[in-house]
């Protein structure tokens, strides 16, 4: 089977391998650098004045102590955990029900309702009318505004529908003949047979709730104690940063001390995702594939 490789081919393969190694390094180094900088001594970091870092200089964890001592980070963490757990639960519940409905055949208004839902992927009212709708629902400054307005992602629901539609219809038909209702078919047949896709969608929802910050920034403007972690981060890392930058450099010294704390905060907010990522990565991929097949 193995044919002899031409010289051009060998050169290409070496070049390609080197390029891919470079690609891997570029993907991971910024994260590695952040991790290293967060456990390094601020003064030593400053003396280096940038430049590549491979290992921590004067390893210490004071940045983390200081970060955790900041009460808004702790509160943000709890708020995010609450939103992720309850958000994933309710999003999964309603997406599953919706996907089950869309996957049924012989339901009279199914086609119209499918169109009613898909249409929203193509046309939307935009940011301001959406904001007004949430405000009219009385959800401003309530935690509900982080979950209910973004409860169902149409894209995720369509992926789930594809998985349900792939379950042989003979299974649900025979269950119906045996007297099973829709709930039984859904929970006893569809859900157990679509485990992998359900896991992917659950993870998609989890990541999006974990990373969300924008809705909180417009809906929770005067409820700082309900802010999720990402919004707290933005306040610490970006908004404050900008204000110190636009004033003058007198606060420079303080800023330097803060640098490793900034990196520590970034790591705190990213670690849960980095930690579970390797284990769930293969599911993510299959989820995208299902979506891709449907196109």
């Amino acid at each position, binding site marked *: 089977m193995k044919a002899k490789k031409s010289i051009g081919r060998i050169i290409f393969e070496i070049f390609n391998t080197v390029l891919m190694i470079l690609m891997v390094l570029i993907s991971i180094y910024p994260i590695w650098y952040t991790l290293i900088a967060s456990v390094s001594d601020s003064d030593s970091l400053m003396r280096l004045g940038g430049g590549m870092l491979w290992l921590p200089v004067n390893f210490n964890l004071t940045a983390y102590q200081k970060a955790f001592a900041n009460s808004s980070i702790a509160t943000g963490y709890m708020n995010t955990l609450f939103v992720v757990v309850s958000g994933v639960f309710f999003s999964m519940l*309603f997406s599953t029900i919706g996907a089950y409905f869309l996957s049924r055949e012989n339901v009279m208004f199914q086609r119209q309702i499918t169109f009613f839902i898909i249409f929203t992927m193509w046309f939307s009212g935009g940011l301001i009318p959406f904001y007004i709708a949430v405000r009219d629902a009385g959800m401003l400054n309530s935690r509900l505004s982080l979950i209910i307005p973004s409860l169902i992602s149409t894209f995720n629901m369509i992926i789930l529908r594809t998985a349900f539609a792939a379950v042989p219809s003979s299974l649900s038909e025979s269950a119906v003949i045996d007297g099973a209702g829709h709930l039984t078919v859904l929970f006893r047949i569809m859900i157990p047979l679509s485990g992998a896709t359900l896991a992917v969608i659950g993870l998609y929802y989890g990541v999006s709730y974990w990373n969300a910050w924008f809705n909180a920034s417009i809906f929770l403007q005067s409820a700082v104690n309900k802010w999720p972690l990402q919004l707290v981060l933005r306040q610490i890392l970006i908004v404050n940063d900008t204000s110190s930058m636009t004033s003058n450099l007198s606060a420079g010294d303080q800023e330097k001390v803060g640098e490793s704390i900034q990196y520590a905060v970034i790591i705190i907010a990213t670690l849960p995702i980095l930690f579970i990522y390797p284990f769930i990565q293969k599911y993510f991929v299959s989820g*995208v594939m299902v979506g891709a097949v449907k196109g």
Partner: protein
Amino acid sequence: MITQQNTRLRYKERVRKDFQKNFSLYLLMLPVILFYLYFHYKPMYGLIMAFQNYNVRTGILGSQLVGLKNFVRFFADPYFKRNIVNTINISLANIVFGFPAPLILALLINELQKKWFVKTVQTISYMPHFISLVVICSMVRNFLQPDGLINAFLSGGKATESMLNNAGLFVPIYVLSDIWQEVGFGSIIYIAALSGIDVELYEAAKIDGAGRIRQTWNITLPCLMPTVIVLLILRLGNVLTVGYEKIILLTNPFNAETSEVLSYYIYQKGILSADYGLATAAGLFNSFINCFFVIAANKISRGVSGLSLW
């Protein structure tokens, strides 16, 4: 006449039967439908605000219609032209450089021989996709500071201010950080399409004496074309859309002249200044342009390659 009545009767009968049979299914679906009605269709109805002098107290029904006044104000805004130009600049740069990147990565990954190496490259290059935008933008900010990783490296430590303050660099910063975050994940769809290509095609080509380059040119690329075209049309449809989230996180007074885009304007006018009518009008304008571009891209693609979304 009689048959018409008959069909109507039969239709009513069918509806009744359907509801009888599937009542529990419709009941289950009700919350989902209400969700779409309230959070998707109510905002569409809210687009009426674009033609109103919207009054927060009285709502849409009690607000006065003002015709196209909001649109006139939007077009007359001194920053209108700048915002449109910035949006198109960022978006086109993102398409020209960001669109081919995942395709090229997928082709290169496809050429790798060792299974474990392929896995490693994929696992690591997908990772940035899952990191939050706030974190990515914070890293970009820190690395571009005078003593930050990238700025210190490029300037040899002589920089005195953040590269983000340089308006001329905003588009490359935006596009490169986007590619960094999304290139791996974007390649998945092409890798899926590549694995779907029939191996026999390659074998037949080999027998006919086609080399690797010819095989890529004459088999791989044509087989990928439908995927590429669909993604490109979808992308072109968004040519006037640059998401506000990343702009909000990266913009500052020094780079505003190149960083402020249409969606940021909508955010600023609508959310920060509560000028709802104007912001809604700007959003509606944006949606219409997008629709126009999707239709145009689809037409062109059908004319040129025979491939289209519909």
